[in-house]
């Protein structure tokens, strides 16, 4: 037979990888699902308060206040017409977190400074204490918005401030009640301060407890600035980035493998490439898909941090760790998905085998908080050596720790993690080799293990 050109071993792997990448990442579905959808989601989240602010009902009507002093109404009027600043809204939110969804949405729009609302309130002062009966009658007839009775004793700074009477119709919305209450409470408090002769600004300054600038000093003497919020956000962002990128592409690997089996194209491919070449090509192809997502989402995050001059939150070493643990996580998760995909004939069958895999992958998400709170604790240290949680736990530990993780632990987790990843890859290849040609009843996990050791 004459010699003829043949495709090299790695040439086939690269060809398969490129096809998988091209038909996954360079499709409208991927661009929409993996790129446009997150952008859309963030856009919707960003626009939500603005959209919701349009829904805030206008506050229109007359408020009658029994105010013998005549000093409360002018103050309350000024307070009501000036909406709270974002900072004030945030402080109020922290002090009295709203329980119901409606109030949470209102608070969110106030904090975003988007609480534009039409307020056209006419205030009427009643000097006679017995005007309350008239107020109730007017409320009953729907002629006024609300009524209040503020006794003279309430304004005396030498006495305890007791409750004032507020009368509202049953139809008044909780937001309007809250607005009117806030205006009256603040007006009474301001009047009491004014009558006591104390400077309001001075009082505010005196009552404002200072925040500490915390510096963490490790046993080795290294110091790091403490930032409680970011201690939670940054490691979580790293882990979720890793989890989403790895899981999305591994899921693609699972579904395309199942599709190739159900389309019967698998045998055609096996006539051109060995199962190992096929598996290697698929894993390589989807690693590129995963890398594209990592670069895209990670790049967006970094660009955002750079725009607000907060790049110091992500030192280069963290990015290096992210890349190392991304590779490890991808090999672990894609091995499991490839093995499952090769063993079943449709997605429904895959569910029973994917269940245990998903349980393993959800564990790092559940351990997020305990690990962040104590990255050098026993739980975090042990979890950092348990596959397939290793990359997710380690990225949490390394980015959360304000004191360094012992170097030997980091090095050992990398070596041990990659050893586990290649072990899983080997097992997946053995299962894949048998599974791709199997049809009919899906195997049990025990049968899968048996396949791995078939000659």
């Amino acid at each position, binding site marked *: *037979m004459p010699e*003829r*050109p*043949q*495709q090299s071993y790695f040439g*086939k792997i690269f*060809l*398969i990888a490129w*096809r998988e990448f091209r*038909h996954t990442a360079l499709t409208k579905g991927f661009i929409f699902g993996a790129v446009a959808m997150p952008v859309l989601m963030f856009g919707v989240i960003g626009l939500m308060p603005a959209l919701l602010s349009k829904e805030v009902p206008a506050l229109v009507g007359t408020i009658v206040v029994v105010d013998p002093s005549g000093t409360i109404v002018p103050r309350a009027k000024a307070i009501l017409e000036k909406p709270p600043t974002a900072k004030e809204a945030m402080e109020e939110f922290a002090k009295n977190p709203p329980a119901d969804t409606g109030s949470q949405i209102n608070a969110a729009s106030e904090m975003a400074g988007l609480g534009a609302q039409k307020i056209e309130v006419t205030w009427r002062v009643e000097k006679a204490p017995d005007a309350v009966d008239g107020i109730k009658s007017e409320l009953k007839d729907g002629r006024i918005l609300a009524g209040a009775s503020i006794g003279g004793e309430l304004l005396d700074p030498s006495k305890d401030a007791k409750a004032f009477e507020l009368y509202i119709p049953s139809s008044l919305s909780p937001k309007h009640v809250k607005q009117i209450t806030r205006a009256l409470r603040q007006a009474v408090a301001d009047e009491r301060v004014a009558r006591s002769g104390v400077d309001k600004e001075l009082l505010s300054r005196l009552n404002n407890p200072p925040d500490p600038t915390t510096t963490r000093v490790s046993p080795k003497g290294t110091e790091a600035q403490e930032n409680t919020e970011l201690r939670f956000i940054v490691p979580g962002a790293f882990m979720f980035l890793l989890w989403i990128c790895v899981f999305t592409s591994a899921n693609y690997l699972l579904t395309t493998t199942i599709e*190739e089996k159900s*389309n*019967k*194209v*698998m*045998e*055609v*491919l*096996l*006539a*051109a*490439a*060995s199962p190992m070449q096929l598996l290697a090509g698929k894993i390589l192809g989807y690693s590129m898909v995963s890398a594209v997502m990592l670069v895209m989402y990670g790049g967006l995050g970094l660009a955002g941090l750079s725009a607000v001059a907060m790049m110091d939150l992500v030192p280069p070493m963290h990015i290096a760790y992210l890349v190392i643990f991304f590779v490890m996580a991808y090999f672990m998760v894609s091995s499991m998905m490839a093995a499952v995909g090769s063993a079943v004939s449709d997605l429904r069958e895959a569910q029973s085998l994917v269940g245990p895999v998903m349980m393993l992958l959800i564990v790092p998400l559940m351990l997020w908080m305990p690990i962040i709170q104590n990255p050098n604790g026993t739980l975090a240290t042990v979890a950092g050596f348990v596959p397939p949680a290793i990359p997710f736990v380690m990225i949490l530990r390394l980015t959360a720790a304000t004191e360094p993780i012992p170097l030997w632990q980091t090095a050992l987790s990398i070596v041990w993690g990659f050893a586990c990843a290649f072990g899983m890859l080997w097992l997946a290849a053995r299962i894949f080799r048998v599974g791709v*040609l199997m049809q009919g009843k899906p195997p049990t996990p025990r049968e899968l293990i048996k396949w791995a050791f078939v*000659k």
Partner: protein
Amino acid sequence: MSFGTSSASSSVPAAPSRARPSGNAAVRIDNVMKRFGSVQAVKGISLEIPERSLCGFLGPNGAGKSTTIRMIMSIISPDSGSVEVLGSSALAMKDRIGYLPEERGLYRKMKVGEFVGYMAKLKGVHPTGLARRIDDWLERLALPGVSKRRCEELSKGQQQRIQLLASIIHAPDLLILDEPFSGLDPINGRLVTDLIRSEQARGATIIFSTHQMHTAEALCDKVVLINKGDKVLDATLAELRAKHDDRGLVCEPRTDARTFADAAVARGIATAARTNDGGTVDLDLAPGTDADAAMRAALEIAPMRSMALRRMNLDDVFVELVGKSDGEQKKGARIDA
């Protein structure tokens, strides 16, 4: 449509006159066995398929044909025994083998040209000129202009032709087709028959499995009959004819068929005679009878519309051998029991 000629400008390899088997083995199987769980799918088959021959794998459903073919393709490994393909292992020779599996498959969303090109590149075909080569082949397969269409947009028959094209686009030295005629209408069946002939004429060794005995009879140099994992027949068509051509004549007399049949037996031309529907008569000749002399003698009895030597029928051979093999296995089973 003819596959025997090709325009000079075509990038599709021109088909020379029908090549003859070279004598070297393209496939050599030695005592291969394969078991799936409790089922012994292949029970120690040995065979050789000469280079440039056209070999038919025959056998009833579940006989072990596809398993044997998959072992030749090294898609599955035999439990024991050895398989040699083109002088080496099939794994090393994948790029020189074309394969059409029994269960057809293609990427539904992929464009036709892209799919065939992908398979060709996996088999080592250089990308230069590949698109032109695919277009030429599509034209020859009566599928002009489908290159840019998605595979899922084609009819079932068109998809089958695309799959066949994907198996031959790299001009393989060995072409293995598992049930290539299944589900094809007569026109597409003829197209595939011509294509198989054309590939053999190019110099490829071809193995195909089929249930269609008349197709195997018309195409094959050699047939291998497999039943219940055993090889029950391995012979060239010439050998089969020599063995199974029963010495007989099929005559269509212009006179009364019954009278002619009686006269033929009475004159000692035939040992037995049977009349058939349609006015033909089967004459069984005695061993050692000269067929030409018998024909002349028959013509003396009555003028003929037609007269021919009775030839072997692969259908009958199949039924006879499979029935015999089943009977022996049942007998063996009873003895074992």
